[in-house]
């Protein structure tokens, strides 16, 4: 157990590489890889372990309000695997494993197709007016296309309110609209 940290000292940190997969990405801004610096000591002054990391991720990295898809009853939700430097965390002491600088922590959901969407959230149709330039190579054909479409954000996007991730929108437009005009 380390000594309790003094409030005046700069808090030492541990650099970590965090990876989410199996559908958990959607809880963390749709990003698979994250690099972060975790405080080396927890609130009680003990070296930071996986249990502390899980709480830290919930409070600082998670962009989704559905915490229960990651943590249940103060522990990692059953069905989520943790690999510490590619090894099953069950071999490393699970939540009590003390993190080392440069550790690679992978969280994989084994739940079918990722966490279930929240029930009871309705899709809000968003009406968008999209204007873009279309350029054809060779003939330099430029034209303005204006269209209005009804975009139904995916359920998990509603947590973002008005800030819909742009990649979903482009994917939606790409799949729905581009084929209609050539």
């Amino acid at each position, binding site marked *: 157990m380390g000594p309790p940290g003094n409030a005046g000292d700069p808090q030492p940190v541990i650099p970590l590489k965090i990876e989410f997969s199996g559908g958990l990405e959607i809880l963390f801004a749709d990003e698979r890889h994250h690099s972060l610096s975790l405080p080396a000591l927890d609130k009680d002054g003990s070296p930071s372990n996986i249990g502390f990391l899980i709480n830290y991720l919930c409070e600082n990295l998670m962009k989704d309000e559905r915490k229960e898809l990651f943590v249940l009853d103060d522990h990692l939700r059953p069905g989520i695997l943790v690999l510490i430097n590619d*090894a099953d965390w069950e071999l490393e002491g699970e939540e009590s494993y003390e993190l080392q600088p440069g550790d690679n922590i992978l969280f994989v959901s084994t739940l079918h197709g990722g966490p279930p969407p929240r029930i009871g959230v309705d899709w809000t149709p968003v009406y968008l007016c999209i204007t873009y330039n279309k350029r054809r190579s060779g003939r330099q054909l430029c034209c303005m296309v204006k269209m209005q479409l009804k975009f139904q954000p995916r359920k998990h996007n509603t947590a973002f309110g008005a800030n819909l991730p742009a990649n979903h929108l482009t994917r939606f437009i790409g799949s729905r609209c581009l084929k209609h005009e050539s």
Partner: protein
Amino acid sequence: MPPTLCVGCHEQRAVVKRPKNHQKLCRECFLSIFEDEIHHTITSSKLFYPGERVAIGASGGKDSTVLASVLKTLNERHGYKLDLVLLSVDEGIKGYRDDSLETVKRNATQYEMPLKIVGYDELYGWTMDQVVETIGKKGNCTYCGVFRRQALDRGAKKLDIKHVVTGHNADDVAETVLMNLLRGDLARLSRSTNIVTGDSLSDVKRSKPLKYAYEKEIVLYAHHKKLDYFSTECIYSPEAFRGTARSLIKSLEKVRPSAILDIVRSGEDMGELTPDKVQASCACDDGGMGSCGSGAQKEAALKRDSQMKKLETEIKLNKLEEPSDVVKLPIRGKNGKQMTGSTTGALPSLGKCIKCGYMSSQSMCQACTLLETLNKNRADIAI
């Protein structure tokens, strides 16, 4: 803490702790033991014959990707002489299926297997997106499930293949056993545990070679073999009951990892004791297994049945003039559910759908019945 050594080779660092026996294994030993166990499942239940053409139901998810990879490995290693084909169903859900189909296409190249994609639009004239636009989010899993069941079979028939393997794992089977148990549906329970479903009456047989493989190990296998798989949620309605059963299974696994295989074994043993083997010939719903759809469909059937039952009780009470203060327990006969479900009391016999010719226990198969309702509403939507 010094790294734990593998109990297999005693040389490498252990990276996997097996849920079923707590064995600690290194990457190489784990991969080979996992493959050996699938090989054992295949040979001991005589799933394939040499030269058989087999379609792998591929969704691009972890289970089917691992299944395709393992089958390819074993086919070459043990000389099964199988002719393997990937078969995918395109439900027509934008932002979900189109992405995962890309994964399947990559898999087809990686594993050098031909790929056949059958779409709901070409089979039924409806994509799931259109279905949802018409009927809404509620209950669309029923459509998807009924359609998918036939789609795999029809796809296999188009390829002239009589055997479809699916990626259902031990967790899936345990979950289904539990669900059938909670519904009191022992007939389906017995079917859901069979490794091979479909029988002489149906043209296409189904099997699940990963039946004894833990989902955890499948994910770890995919991870350590660096397989290319796709994971996302279906963007449409989740199925509450299955989700709850799944959470329960995962919580049980946390406390007692062997529980999953124990439930599968219990399911098999209970299946042996079930008298209603006749029902196995009803091919309108496959082995009671399945991804989201089949469950929802069963739930719908269950709802119907319970309504029927209510009606029946009322009639009985009138006829027998029983004293009203006697509370009768809902005891049912051997074929309880089926009896209450049909007015004549006879078991439904297997015939062919009058519309599409697909096997069905009613005069019109479920898919065609659902399509009729959909087509009636088509005027309501403007695309």
